[in-house]
């Protein structure tokens, strides 16, 4: 089991007083995959990531990264050697120049990829002579990414890696992620850039209020989520379409939009039987799947 997964957690939870940041999270992230970790601000993504890296202790539950228990001190040290992490706070030595910090980092890692280092210094247009403290936010992000990518880790954990990057920077980042994946690096990253995630991720996890609501391959999501727009000659009760695969129904008079998580044909067949004047089936972009997923939650909580 453990050698199939880069990350695995069982009922992993973290609360601060009465507030639970992460609730009984069962996460399994496969090796050799690009996995995106989505969620609104405050959903518990960073807390989860920090628990995985041994930076904060879970309140209860357990987890393993690359086979090492996250709460075991020795194992956690080993994890941090094999995992490269870029988070919101980038602890870079402000007084060093870009060139110095690269040479400094290099001295710690025997597997350091000089080719990656040179390629990214050029691609990210990082000024080697400049001091870290004079770099813009985007530049610091790029530098932190370069240091992570050149280490040749087994697992990359990135918390909002595209934060502060311009569109060109984001494109370079995506390209680097793909190259890393080709080198056999497993990638787990959180992001709000859903359109970008949609291009490169193999698998998507959506966290909302500390709970995992979606844990699926992007191929399955693309294949199964559909929006079906229906027009009838008179208004039709929504009850006709309350199947288990239906996530939400929107009715405006004789027009009805039905969002399904799978099997759009059940809805299409029913609509035909009800003599729908028009039936349009269209795919749903990841952004809308995300919005639908996080929208549903408060209603569910009220029940």
């Amino acid at each position, binding site marked *: 089991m453990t050698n199939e997964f880069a990350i695995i957690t069982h009922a992993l939870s973290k609360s601060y007083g009465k507030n639970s940041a992460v609730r009984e999270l069962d996460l399994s992230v496969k090796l050799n995959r690009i996995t995106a970790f989505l969620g609104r601000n405050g959903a518990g993504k960073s807390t989860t990531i920090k628990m995985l890296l041994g930076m904060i202790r879970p309140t209860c539950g357990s987890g393993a990264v690359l086979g090492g228990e996250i709460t075991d001190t020795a194992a956690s040290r080993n994890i941090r050697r094999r995992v490269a992490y870029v988070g919101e706070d980038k602890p870079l030595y402000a007084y060093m120049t870009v060139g110095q910090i690269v040479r400094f980092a290099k001295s710690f890692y025997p597997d350091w990829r000089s080719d990656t280092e040179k390629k990214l210094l050029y691609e990210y247009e990082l000024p080697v002579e400049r001091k870290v403290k004079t770099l813009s936010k985007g530049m610091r992000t790029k530098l932190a990414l370069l240091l992570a990518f050149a280490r040749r880790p087994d697992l990359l954990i990135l918390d909002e890696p595209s934060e502060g990057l311009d569109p060109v920077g984001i494109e370079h980042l995506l390209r680097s992620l793909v190259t890393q994946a080709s080198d056999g690096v497993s990638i787990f990253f959180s992001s709000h850039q859903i359109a970008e995630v949609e291009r490169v991720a193999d698998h998507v996890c959506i966290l909302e209020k500390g709970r995992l609501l979606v844990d699926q391959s992007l191929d399955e999501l693309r294949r199964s989520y559909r929006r079906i727009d229906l027009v009838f000659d008179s208004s039709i009760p929504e009850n006709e379409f309350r199947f288990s695969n239906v996530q939400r129904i929107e009715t405006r008079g004789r027009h009805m939009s039905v969002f399904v998580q799978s099997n759009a044909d059940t809805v299409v067949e029913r609509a035909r039987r009800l003599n729908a004047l028009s039936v349009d*089936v269209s795919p749903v*972009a990841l952004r809308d799947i995300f919005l639908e997923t996080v929208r549903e939650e408060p209603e569910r909580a009220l029940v």
Partner: protein
Amino acid sequence: MGMFLKPAPDAGQPLYLQLMQQIRHAAETGALLDGDQLPSIRALADELVVSPNTIVKAYSELAHEGLLDLRHGAGAFVCVKRRTRSLADRVQASRRHIRVLIEQLREEGLFDEEIRRAFDAEMACTAETVRRR
């Protein structure tokens, strides 16, 4: 620039399927010939900026269909057998059928956009039904 387009992430179809269609189409039209070598997984993933797993899946599915020959360590080679050519003929024939149908629908007063939407709806519907079996 390479010969393949970046797949559309929001097209409601897995990226590997879109890539398979592009490769199949290239083989049917003769843009790819028997024995041609496809880019390596790494090169194509970099070029299209998609996960390498997408390329792996497309190549291995096509190898399963017999359109590609995956030679270990050497790469992926196009293998246009008679079946592919007869497929190309069938595709040509099907286009003739579709042309006749479209003309007929136009004569019945439908606009192109309406025909296209009807086509999409039927395709989506039958594809879902077939998949469920």
